[in-house]
């Protein structure tokens, strides 16, 4: 009796209502890329790129563009994206967004925080898409460039960033939450990756461009965008990005170091080391009233190529090379930090947070005007590279060549 009543109740609720949140796969469009440009009449112009699923069908792959895009103007992202169906037949699903392209003018003039909030708030958006600042071209163009290998452009960008991060390091590894965290943090300023288009974006939009061996247009990573609070204030080059990453969390990288410090420019000789394991530590201290920024870096590396005429079977060579790498890397990193200090005066490295962790009392006082403190601080970078091994050969064959021949 009671159970029947309960069953009846359940059945009634079910029958009366139906399924609220369900949506068929045939009725959704999976958005992989979003691009934000300044609008002409309204605040923003949003472009979404969604996958054309027929392209992925194994049985009868349709010949056509792998993605379609749709552009609309409006004052806020949720409104525009809800309105997208004026031109798109399916409901847009944003949970698989892979890349968010932000036009540099938007980032410079309006700041990014206004739309980042809606992204963070929405349960649809995940924390796994890349925030990319687009240079030179409109963000819209980036959502359209085809790629012969990956087909879906945003997937391509994300994959290439991921791979780059593993092999060389050139992406700050910033996700939405990290970015927002950095905006509100007092001891850190946000950064984001930048991308550029190489080639002609008009040609790159064609599906036929996939037929060509050399793609007419390619999306390329191009270093770092530096923000003050939520406004873009400048850029760093790819090399600086790597140096920046070195202070943060570098997975691995490859670096070439000159054999002699002052060698002739005509035929410089280099040796390459691959960093396999990296540990960096930031310390911020106050000496009197002068802030001191310290970076301690310890890396394990192995030698990957050798143009110098050095005998790698000897301990002394290893020590010598280690010292050279130490110095080179130290210089590089110091240069980058000083450049940021001088040019932008914002602490993108998080030294302020380090101070907060290490000297909480002091930090409480100085953090409100931390950027000024950062700009005038002394920088001290301490690098220690440990060369562990040298590949499958000990001596390079180059060192067996008669010296003259090598020079000729």
């Amino acid at each position, binding site marked *: 009796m009671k159970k029947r009543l309960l069953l009846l109740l359940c059945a009634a*609720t079910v029958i009366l*209502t139906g399924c609220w949140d369900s949506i068929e796969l045939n009725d959704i469009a999976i958005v992989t890329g979003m691009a934000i440009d300044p609008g002409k009449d309204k605040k923003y112009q949003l472009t979404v790129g969604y996958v054309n699923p027929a392209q992925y069908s194994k049985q009868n792959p349709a010949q056509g563009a792998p993605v379609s895009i749709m552009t609309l103007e409006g004052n806020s992202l949720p409104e525009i994206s809800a309105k997208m169906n004026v031109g798109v037949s399916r409901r847009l699903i944003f949970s698989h967004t892979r890349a968010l392209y932000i036009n540099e003018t938007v980032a410079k003039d309006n700041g990014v925080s206004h739309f980042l909030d809606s992204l963070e708030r929405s349960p649809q958006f995940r924390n796994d898409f890349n925030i990319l600042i687009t240079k030179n071209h409109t963000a819209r163009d980036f959502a359209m460039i085809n790629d012969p290998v990956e087909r879906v452009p945003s997937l391509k960008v994300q994959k290439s960033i991921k791979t780059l991060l593993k092999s060389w390091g050139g992406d700050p590894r910033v996700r939405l939450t990290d970015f927002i965290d950095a905006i509100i943090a007092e001891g850190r300023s946000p950064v984001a990756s930048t991308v550029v288009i190489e080639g002609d974006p008009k040609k790159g939009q064609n599906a036929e461009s996939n037929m060509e061996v050399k793609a007419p247009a390619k999306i390329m990573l191009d270093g770092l965008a530096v923000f003050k609070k939520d406004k873009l204030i400048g850029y760093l080059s790819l090399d600086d990005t790597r140096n920046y990453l070195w202070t943060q969390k570098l997975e691995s990288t490859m670096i070439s170091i000159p054999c002699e410090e002052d060698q002739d420019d005509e035929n410089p000789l280099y040796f390459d080391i691959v960093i396999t394991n990296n540990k960096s530590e930031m310390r911020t201290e106050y000496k009197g009233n002068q802030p001191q920024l310290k970076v301690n870096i310890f890396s394990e590396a192995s030698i990957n190529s050798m143009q110098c005429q050095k005998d790698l079977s000897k301990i002394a060579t290893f020590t010598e090379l280690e010292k050279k790498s130490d110095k080179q890397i130290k210089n590089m990193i110091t240069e980058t930090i000083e450049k940021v200090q001088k040019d932008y005066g914002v602490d993108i490295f998080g030294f302020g947070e380090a101070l907060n962790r290490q000297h909480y009392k002091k930090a409480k006082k100085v953090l409100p005007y931390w950027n000024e403190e950062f700009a005038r601080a002394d920088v001290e970078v301490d690098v220690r590279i440990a060369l562990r091994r040298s590949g499958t050969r000990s001596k390079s064959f180059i060192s067996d060549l008669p010296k003259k021949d090598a020079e000729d």
Partner: protein
Amino acid sequence: MVTFTFSVIFAGLLLMIALIDMFIWQQSFYQCISKLFALDQGANEGYVIATAAAGFIYSIAMDYRIRKNKRSQQS
């Protein structure tokens, strides 16, 4: 008895909510009570009202059954 319990609990909890609302919203008691009964909290409030009503009917049925059992036991 079950029906009585049902009404006591129902009324008591509503009263409690109203009192807490008074505290939180700084409103008068009358306002809070009227807010509880106005159908503005959700368009689908009908569902829960229906289930609460079902609970009420059930409790009446339960009372009836208890009484019937008692009578049959006595006789």
